[in-house]
């Protein structure tokens, strides 16, 4: 009988009031590629963080090659043979490729001196063996994002003879040649008996590379299955669960009148003459793979990019795109994709966060004296309307769960009136319950007559929420999908090639 590379039994993890993992079991065979599937917030990232020693499980045990292990830090996990490749690139940009590859385990001439020749030759050999065109003496900073990712992958895999390699969305930035190189690397690893946990949203890859697949939902393992015994549709069904219809609100049809018109929007090197319109009461989605420019559309419209050409009309008025300040003054509301970095004032109160954007316009005398009581009352209304779970307007927003933080981020635009709503990743990293409420609110905003523009990297969300979806590829609109054409397949095919 063959021992499993990794055996996880009864693992649970709670963050605050949020049960992220509940009594989860998972086994990983030697030399297999095991795909982990699940929506954002299903618990995948928490699970891999527990395996790689970033978090500790509240309950449950973990066996690595038959031995019971408990990792207290990522370092211990690495020593134990778990190599993790996180979504974010974790390199040192001012060191060379070779130095990054060997960071912490440089070949040495003696105790003190690094053997630079061996370091550069060894690194170049590893790169060449994979058929990649990367110069080992180049500084990481000067590499393209995809090349950096490849270096990161090589490093993670070869570091300390890993017996388990965890890959979280490894192909997110890669082109086809690099994806092929990655897959051949995976093949080599499998031959050596290394097991791989593979996380990807791209269904096709899963069927190409995985041996087995496990589907997680709401922190539970729903099913583990051989890849040959399951179909794409079944996986999706398992991922979203039976309550799919209830997840997205019932929409009313948009009106025919165009409310917002974007014409020839261009940003140097990112967007090329992007043109579309949004009707009254319509939710228009924007889709595109990473690097396609899809994430730049809303930023450019809001004044966060240097727009080289193009016009935005709302209700027939051409807007002047300069800075967020002028965009807001002209009626645009914006929810950024990274709520911690670009959205919230984490060390400030819930009340501060909810009304900061409208203090001057709605709650001030003479334009600068704050009417505190009214502002407070307004923020209480928003808390109630969105069901934000907080002990009051005076709690620090950083102490709230991700879902409640995200609700607050949307909620700040519910005070005051706007002419168009721009949303980026409106439900990133929030639990299903919060998702449902955010979706309901977005739908209500649209139903009130506003055009809503929504960028999301989750195709299911776009399909569930949007009336039409604009697909961006290489900075251009490659298609606008609606009705029966609005499927994951169609979006992907428009996003990938002509």
């Amino acid at each position, binding site marked *: 009988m063959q021992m499993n590379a990794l055996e996880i039994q009864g693992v649970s993890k709670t963050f*605050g*009031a949020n049960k992220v993992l509940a009594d989860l079991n998972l086994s990983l065979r030697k030399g297999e590629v095991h795909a982990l599937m699940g929506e954002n917030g299903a618990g995948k990232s928490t699970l891999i963080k527990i395996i790689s020693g970033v978090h500790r499980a509240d309950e449950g045990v973990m066996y690595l090659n038959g031995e019971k292990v408990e990792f207290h830090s990522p370092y211990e996990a690495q020593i134990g043979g778990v190599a993790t490749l996180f979504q974010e690139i974790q390199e040192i940009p001012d060191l060379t490729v070779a130095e990054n590859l060997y960071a912490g385990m440089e070949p040495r001439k003696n105790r003190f001196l690094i053997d630079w020749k061996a370091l550069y030759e060894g690194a170049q050999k590893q790169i060449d063996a994979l058929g990649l065109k990367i110069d080992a003496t180049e500084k990481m900073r000067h590499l393209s994002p995809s090349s950096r990712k490849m270096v990161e992958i090589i490093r993670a895999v070869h570091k300390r003879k890993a017996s388990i390699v965890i890959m979280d969305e490894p192909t997110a930035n890669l082109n086809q040649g690099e994806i092929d190189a990655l897959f051949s690397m995976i093949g080599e690893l499998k031959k050596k008996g290394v097991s791989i946990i593979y996380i990807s949203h791209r269904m096709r890859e899963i069927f190409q590379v995985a041996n087995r697949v496990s589907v997680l939902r709401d922190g539970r393992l729903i099913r583990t299955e051989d890849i040959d015994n399951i179909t794409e549709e079944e996986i999706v069904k398992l991922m979203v669960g039976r309550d799919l219809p209830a997840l997205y609100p019932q929409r009313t049809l948009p009106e025919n009148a165009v409310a917002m018109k974007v014409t020839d929007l261009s940003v140097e090197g990112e967007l090329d003459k992007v043109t579309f319109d949004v009707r009254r009461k319509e939710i228009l989605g924007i889709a595109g793979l990473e690097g396609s420019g899809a994430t730049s559309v809303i930023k450019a419209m*809001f004044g*966060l990019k240097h727009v080289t050409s193009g016009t935005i009309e709302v209700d027939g008025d051409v807007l002047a795109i300069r*800075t*967020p*300040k002028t*965009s*807001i*003054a002209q009626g645009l509301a*914006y929810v*950024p994709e990274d709520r911690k*970095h*670009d*959205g*919230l*004032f*984490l*060390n*400030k109160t819930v009340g*501060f966060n909810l009304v*900061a*954007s409208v*203090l*001057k316009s709605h709650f*001030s005398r003479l*334009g*600068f*004296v*704050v009417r*505190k009581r009214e502002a407070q009352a307004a923020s209480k209304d928003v808390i109630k309307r969105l069901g934000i*779970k*907080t*002990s*009051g307007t*005076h*709690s*620090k927003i950083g*102490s*709230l769960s991700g879902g409640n933080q995200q609700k607050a981020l949307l909620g*700040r635009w519910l005070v005051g009136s706007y002419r168009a709503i721009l949303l980026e990743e409106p439900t990133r990293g929030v639990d299903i319950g919060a998702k449902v409420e955010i979706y309901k609110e977005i739908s209500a905003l649209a139903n009130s007559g506003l055009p809503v523009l929504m960028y999301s990297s989750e195709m299911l969300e776009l399909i569930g929420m949007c009336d039409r979806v604009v697909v961006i590829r290489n900075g251009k609109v490659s298609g606008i999908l609606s009705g029966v054409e609005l499927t994951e397949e169609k979006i992907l095919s428009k996003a990938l090639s002509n």
Partner: protein
Amino acid sequence: MQKSQTQNGVAGWLGDYRSEATLVILLCLAFAVAPLFTEFFLTSDNLFNLSRQGSYLSIVAIGMALVLIVGGIDLSIGAIMQLVGLCTMLLLGSGVSAGNAFLLALLLGAGLGVINGVLCVYGKMQPFIATLATGGIMTGIVMTYTEGNAVAPQGIDPLFKEIGGGAIAGIPIPAAVMIVVVALFWWVMTNTTYGKNVYAVGSNKNAARNIGVNTNLVLCSVYVVSGTLAALAGYLTFARMGTFQPATAATGGTPVEMVIMAIAAVVLGGGSLVGGKGTVLGAFLGATVSAVMLNYLVLLGMGIWFQRFILAMIIIFVVLLAQKNEAA
């Protein structure tokens, strides 16, 4: 959830003003035990002098508080006090009235603040480097012009010395000015959109931009506030003396020491060098505690060097205490 519920009510309010509360307790203690050590502390003469001595530091600390709240730093305030003091004296010597010299002094301070702000925001220099350099330039100008000697013009407007040494209703004029400044900026920071914008920029610059705050303007403005208040403190300091004396360790503190004391005051009051935190009230209390302690130590006959030692110890103690409370 359970955790945030405990932050309600009085405890919650104190949570926001923990540093301030600590300082108030410290001040009360100092006043309570003072008679045990020295009979002079609670005399009206001493308190009169103390309130005037403390006012200069309080005024510059308010400006420093705004700068630290946005995550910047202004190392030039001591040098601004010097340069403004020299210019004021030269203006008075050429027959300008004390009132007009006052307005020109504030204008000069604001202008120097604009230079700092423009270098930091539009020149994209690190505030530490930019203000260190501008402060150095200003000190250089003062020392080159005076060659280290006093400037004491004759026949200047007598009102000048009256502002520095006189009193209104028993309160020294510099202390009265300080009270107005503290009250004004306390109100500005807690009740106006400008105050909220300063906190927003300090808490998260990107987020502030995304809700429509002109972040560059806000960042620039705090250096103007800081420069203007430093000019005000400089004017009042030299009005007290009636002459201009280039600052050295021998004449009661170099420009750099003023900067350190101001930063210490803000940090004592709950501010942080990484921005987003701090209050006007905290900066005022921090400055007052420093002034009281120094006064105390003088009365106890401690030397000037030992005073600095004690003051530094207090900073470490109070900041550690504040952090411990925050973590709890």
